[in-house]
């Protein structure tokens, strides 16, 4: 009984692990394989999964370009209002997603900003762009915060030495800061992408069509019932797990 503490920890950890994994495995294993393959042949399923993957990837790329500089500024500089900016980055993950969807609809669905975008041919209601902003609004927090923690771990002396060796601030950022916080950035990006894949509440307010996978699952569930929506959900889960494991494996293998 020497290890009673460890056994206690394992017991409690197992409860939460089962809670998290059983519904997923049940979804995957509880579906008939033939039915899954049948579902995979359906055009609307394929295009919906493709759209989900593509748009969440776009939103991740957009936040990589704009969010990394923001994360770097927060990690490296002390300035008035920094806490406020950090709070603003965290807020989207705390508010109800439908409320976020309505807030986005009021900006990108009507009014001056919407009209300004419309004048250059970009609209958000029922378009890929609408899905993208909804995904981005609710998931960029993960990437920005991940990158911020990564940048904080990079010793500022590395950047200073690189400057004395002839690199300008941009070159230092690209060659020293980003590569040395790469793991946190990739983890944050994966979290963002994953969160984007599952975004439903805000997306549905801006773009019911074209249907991303979560909307398709919901649509099939309300129109045709569980048996018709479950295979789509299972396929989505399998693809997500596969991609996440692959990226994490590659990330861990990198120097």
């Amino acid at each position, binding site marked *: 009984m020497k290890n009673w503490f460890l056994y206690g920890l394992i017991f409690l950890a197992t409860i939460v692990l089962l809670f998290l994994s059983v519904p997923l495995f049940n979804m995957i294993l509880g579906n008939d394989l033939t039915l899954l393959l049948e579902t995979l042949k359906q055009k609307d399923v394929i295009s919906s999964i493709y759209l989900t993957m593509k748009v969440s990837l776009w939103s991740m790329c957009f936040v990589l370009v704009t969010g990394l500089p923001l994360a770097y500024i927060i990690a490296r500089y002390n300035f008035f209002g920094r806490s406020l900016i950090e709070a603003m980055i965290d807020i989207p993950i705390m508010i109800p997603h439908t409320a976020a969807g309505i807030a986005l609809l009021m900006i990108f669905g009507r009014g001056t900003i919407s009209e300004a975008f419309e004048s250059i041919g970009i609209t958000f209601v029922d378009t890929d762009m609408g899905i993208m902003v909804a995904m981005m609004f609710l998931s960029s927090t993960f990437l920005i915060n991940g990158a911020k923690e990564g940048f904080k771990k990079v010793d500022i002396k590395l950047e200073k*030495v690189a*400057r004395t*060796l002839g690199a300008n601030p941009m070159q230092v950022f690209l060659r020293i800061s980003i590569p*040395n916080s790469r793991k946190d950035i990739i983890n944050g990006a994966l979290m963002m992408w994953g969160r984007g894949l599952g975004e439903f509440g805000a997306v549905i307010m801006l773009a019911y069509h074209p249907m991303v996978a979560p909307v398709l699952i919901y649509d099939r569930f309300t129109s045709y019932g569980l048996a018709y929506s479950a295979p789509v959900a299972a396929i989505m889960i399998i693809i997500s797990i596969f991609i996440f494991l692959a990226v994490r494996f590659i990330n861990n293998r990198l*120097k």
Partner: protein
Amino acid sequence: MKLFEVENLSYKLGDFKLDNINFKVNQGEYFVLLGQSGSGKTLLLESIAGFNSIDGKINFEGKDISELSPENRDVGFVYQDFALFPNLNVRENIMFSGRYKQIENPEETLHDLADFLGLEPLLNREIDNLSGGERQRVAIARALFSKPKILLLDEPLSAIDPTFRNSIMKFLKDIHRKYNLTTIHVTHNFREASYLADRIAIVMNGQIRQIGTASDVLNNPENLEVAKFLGFKNILPSSMLNEDSGRLFSVDPNTIHISKDELKNDYVFEGKLEECMGIIDHYKIFVKVGEEQFFAKLLKRDYMGCYADRGESIFIGFDKKDVSYL
């Protein structure tokens, strides 16, 4: 020939201030900034490298470089913990500047440095697999590869195992001789400073308190604060030597003679033995003379014993040549 000059440099960081710093460094000189932790030495070195927006001027070869960014100052910087880039291997670390600066014959330069610094077998290693000494050599090679006009070393021996410090000090001297590179070295260790420095500046509380040749600064501190920092003992009023200059003097504990009988030195005092402590190879002896206390060190190989018991009378003596005035 004057190469580098800091004029009225001031910089404030929170409650701390580098205050009106002035000094010159000559071409090929090994200049040491000596001071305690927190005295502002590293901040001063970083200001020279261009990391801080300073008040005042930094002239290099007659040109004011205080507005130039660090990448345009031609300085090499080696930090205490070496700051090697973890995402690059040894070769890539050393050759880092090659991407951003015009380096003539980069491969030849790399192999020349690697050969001199004993890094040839390590060139393809990851930096995680290097010892402290190897890391230091890589950091120095990286700085030298960029062909700096001045080398800035921030406590380069602090992270090195004490067993290897002597050999690395010699190695720093060898580098300085081979490349005839003007060097500013920051340290809190005066042994290190006395071995390496051509000239020394004492930095205290963000100010330079004394500048001079190594032997001058280390043997003749200008004031009490510097003397205490340099570890001077027996700092006493010169009135004891029958002088009324109002100054203080100091005498090295190793030069004080002790005897039960009267001595024939220039200055001789009779006092009472307060304490005698036997330490491995020597005795630490404390003698009260009037209101003052003298401290002397006596090697066991010269005499075994304390000359007297505690409270007994004893003579101490020293010569004029061993007295330093503050």
